[in-house]
């Protein structure tokens, strides 16, 4: 019995007493780190499919109702959207910097970068709330008082040519009413997708901020060392992913057709 190298009478040292962060079912810190990182990549793979479905729906409707989508896209504030993209890119930089600080064992810098990340993340959400508020005032939220014809959120004025409202249509009240009903319906699809996509993205941001509050606390407590900072690293992967989703959402939602007079 004791000849076999696989069976030993000695008690198994399963707890890795010298390395409290190393779980007993892993042989080495590197193995544990790779497993955790791989798990996060798998999760991000499913996230790509999750957002992919909505992106696909968006692309199909955009193809069908291009004029209405272009006109509705122009009602989004380009300057605010660009600024928000910049804010999110800054947050990605601070996340990368905090991981680097952990790799180098610079605890103060690490916490500082994480606090900046939280600040940028919350700023993004604040600016997004402001944008949504403006859409509410313009009656562009697809609910009961949704309206894009006349009033504050009028989308037809100045866009008659693109929307196919020719003088012939204008002079025919029946045709005009039919076209207006279509515009009302098709822009509603754009805004539904806009709120679904930016809303899901914002939920991911809120979850990200929650995760990073915990991570910042852990960093503050000195839980991360150059050898072990896996939670920070994989939380960083998640944050960068959410940034990438926005990198695609920005041109797709804000920049459909910004050509002057087109």
């Amino acid at each position, binding site marked *: 019995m004791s000849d076999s190298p696989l069976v030993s009478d000695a008690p198994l040292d399963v707890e890795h007493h010298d390395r409290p962060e190393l779980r007993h079912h892993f042989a080495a810190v590197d193995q544990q780190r790779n497993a955790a990182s*791989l798990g996060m990549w798998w999760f991000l793979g499913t996230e*790509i499919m999750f957002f992919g479905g909505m992106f696909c729906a968006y692309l199909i409707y955009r193809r069908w109702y291009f004029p209405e989508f272009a006109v509705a896209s122009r009602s989004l504030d380009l300057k605010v959207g660009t600024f928000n993209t910049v804010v999110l*890119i800054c947050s990605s*930089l601070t996340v990368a910097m905090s991981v680097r600080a952990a790799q180098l064992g610079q605890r103060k810098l690490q916490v500082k970068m994480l606090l900046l990340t939280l600040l940028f993340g919350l700023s993004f959400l604040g600016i997004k709330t402001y944008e949504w508020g403006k859409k509410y005032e313009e009656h562009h939220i697809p609910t009961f008082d949704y309206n894009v014809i006349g009033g504050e959120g009028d989308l037809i004025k100045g866009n008659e040519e693109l929307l196919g409202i020719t003088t012939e249509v204008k002079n025919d009240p029946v045709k005009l009413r039919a076209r207006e009903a279509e515009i009302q319906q098709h822009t509603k699809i754009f805004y539904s997708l806009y709120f679904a996509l930016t809303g899901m993205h914002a939920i991911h941001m809120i979850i990200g901020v929650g995760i990073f509050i915990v991570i910042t606390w852990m960093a503050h407590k000195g839980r991360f060392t150059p050898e072990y900072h896996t939670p920070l690293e994989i939380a960083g992967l998640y944050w960068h992913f959410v940034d990438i989703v926005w990198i695609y959402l920005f*041109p*797709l939602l804000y920049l459909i057709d*910004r050509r002057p007079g087109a």
Partner: protein
Amino acid sequence: MSEETHHIVSAKLYWLIWFILIVCTVLTAWIATVDLGKFNTVVALSIATFKASVVVLIFMHVKYTSEKMTKAILMAAIFWLLILLVLSLTDYSSRTEGMLLPAASDVSARLA
């Protein structure tokens, strides 16, 4: 302590990537206001894909990882996404809207 040394990206490179991403963001917002015809969408999506690639490769350390599974998962996810988008869009593009919804003229004819 660890068996393999993990690549530490220089702060300079991170700042450079940040700068490139900011420039690309401003560029894409500006170029959207220039009339390039059909190519406006192509340019916007190319810039977005370039930005996403830079984030994945540098910020997410895919360029430096020795773990082949990470790259395999990433490629599989992109491939699957392309199946979803390309096949769906070729399907929908080869139909006309009129097959699914009545055209405006039909609606007005019925109203009249």
